[in-house]
């Protein structure tokens, strides 16, 4: 049985956004940036890039995809 998706509240979204956009201290930055990339992480990123470039060969097409994605997300309900 699957659980019904419950959208996050506006307050949860606000708090997550604040944390995501908070400037890190130099110490936090150094600690985070010291975590090495794994081969798996690189390959996952490159796989996504290969798909995106093949599907959307030009800058115009890539930017249009992102604009449409943003428009779709902005229409999603917020609890």
């Amino acid at each position, binding site marked *: 049985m699957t659980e019904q998706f419950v959208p996050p509240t506006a307050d949860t979204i606000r708090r997550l956004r604040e944390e995501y*956009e908070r400037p890190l201290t130099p110490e936090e930055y150094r600690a985070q940036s010291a975590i090495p990339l794994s081969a798996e992480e690189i390959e996952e990123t490159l796989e996504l890039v290969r798909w*995106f470039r093949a599907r959307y060969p030009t800058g*115009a097409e890539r930017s249009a995809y992102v*604009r449409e994605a943003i428009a779709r997300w902005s229409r999603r309900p917020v609890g």
Partner: protein
Amino acid sequence: MRGTRFDEEAFFRAIGASGARALVIGRRAMVFLGLPVLTADYDFWLHIDDIDAFNRAVEPFDLHPSRTAEEARRRGRYVLANDEHVDVLVARSVPTVDGVTVSMEDVWARRQQVRYADDVQVAIPTIDDLILTKRFAARAKDLQDIRFLESLRDET
């Protein structure tokens, strides 16, 4: 909801034709490189002497500067906005969170051109320089972007 009448191709063509030394930075530059990340804004790093040329180029798109050119030069950044939101950095140089000073003129000299459309090119920094710009504010989101860019750099 964002406006849908914005002619992005004409926007980039006008900037290219203006002669302004304007680099697309931020996530839009990552998108041009082939990384499918989301962004609603346009971020530019503009040469401090080219503010007037840039503003004239985007005026037909109803994009109006938040500050005079003189104020923008003093503060190092300004915004152009209507339905779209364009952040413009105009500092000659910016320090990263870990103390590296990044000069606009150096980044401009090393720039790369990406094909936007058949007759439109867009100037963006090299991947290494884009990573440096992500270290200006060094937010959690920038760290994730840096990891994407480092993965992409390993491709080349």
